[in-house]
């Protein structure tokens, strides 16, 4: 192209491409915003979302399978076993370590630990991030003796 032609086509293209760009942004102007109004409106998490665990204490048999499966060893379980009676005295998950991998839930023979929909558990202290799922229980002296606490 001759320089004159290049010059005029450059000027034209400059204007034209600006116009094309502006038509694209105009489309965005009228499209629905993608913003989530998070603290005001809680987002609905998907069904298979891997959030904080949900633990069904009454079903748990204290078998430590989940703790063993956990790659980062963040589940700590305390059990008192007296014959058929099983008392879960401790079921702590350390969410500083947990990576929400779901590996603990799959092998559970009693299907009592699941990944839940919740995700808001920020804390200002380290201890605050360790969640205690087991309901606190009064233990007698005997029970204290046979309580087994392990992280595996």
């Amino acid at each position, binding site marked *: 192209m001759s320089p004159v032609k290049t010059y005029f086509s450059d*000027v034209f293209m400059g204007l034209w491409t600006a116009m094309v760009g502006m038509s694209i*942004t*105009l489309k965005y102007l009228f*499209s*629905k915003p993608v*913003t989530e109004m998070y603290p005001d409106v809680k987002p609905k998490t998907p069904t298979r979302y891997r959030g904080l665990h949900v633990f069904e204490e009454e079903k748990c048999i204290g078998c430590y399978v989940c703790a063993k499966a956990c790659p980062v060893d963040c589940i700590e379980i305390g059990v008192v076993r007296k014959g058929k009676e099983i008392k879960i005295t401790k079921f702590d998950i350390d969410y500083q370590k947990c990576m929400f991998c779901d590996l603990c839930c799959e092998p559970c023979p009693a299907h009592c630990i699941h990944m839940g929909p919740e995700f808001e558990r920020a804390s200002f202290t380290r201890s605050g991030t360790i969640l205690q799922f087991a309901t606190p229980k009064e233990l007698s002296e005997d029970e204290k003796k046979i309580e087994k606490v392990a992280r595996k």
Partner: protein
Amino acid sequence: MNELARFLPTFLEGFNLSLPQNLVPVVAMFLCGSIVAAAMGLSAAVLVWAERKLAGHFQCRLGPVYVGGKFGWLQSIADGIKLFLKEDIIPTDADRPLFRLAPYLAVIGVLAAFVAFPISEHLLVADLNIGIFFILAVLTVEVFGVILAGWASNNKWSLLGAMRAAAQMVSSEIPMGLAILLPVMTAESLSLKTIVADQSGGILKWYVFQPPFFMAVAFLIFFVAGLASLKRSPFDLPEAESELTAGFHTEYSGMRFSFFFMAEYAGMLLVSGLAALLYLGGWHGILPGQSGVEWFLLKTSFLLFVMIWIRWTLPRLRIDQVVYVGWKVMTPFALVCVLGQAAAVHFRGG
């Protein structure tokens, strides 16, 4: 009601304030100034909000939503309060007096320009004979303020920003002046009121739609050069956040920063308003006989919208590109337009 500058002295005399005769014009002058400043501050506040809101939606976001109810319409007031409360920092190695002077120069330049800026046939401060020329002249003071700010900050980023501002201003001022020449030639007056009066009688009488359409090109040139002189995107090199931190106002904080901010937004209003007055028929409506301040506001807000739209669309140019556009594209095109329109005016006049 007539021009503010004429109306206020008589208005004041009506109060029997027992002011000395000589003081009445002075008081009126101060009142005029404060009215202009207040109007400017208010419109800047609205504009800042509109800019943020639109910026959000242009990017599929929401923009401000919390302050003042649903649409965040008090956002700029919150911003203003924040700026008021900020600490005013002057760097140790800055040139203190100049550092302090610069923001005032920037704001005064724009403020003074509004004196000759008519909003409707009856709503203006003063109808100067040299209206548009006066505005062009005082606007340069703003640029001087910017350059001074960059120099006085004693900071490399600021200095670079200021140099860019100077180079950019020199290359945008000339096409802008040439583009303004066309309406001036056609209306045979420098007074904005006369220029608008010449465009009365429906949309076809607006200067942009006047055959042989030299003025349509001039309108485009004026608008683009206006963007450049305002340092608005895509010509926001003097600030260029990603390269120069904040460019010429890197070292400014609090109120002094807000002066630059206000000058920019008031400048936007000025350029859009001028484009509406010079090329889009000012306060005349689409149909013949329609006229009123609402038309002017409508056109100005549309142009402001376009400015915001451009800002959130186009990426920043390089400084050599800006200078190229100014000197090698807009100036020759504007010159051709001036010659063409001169010929058109000449032959129309017979």
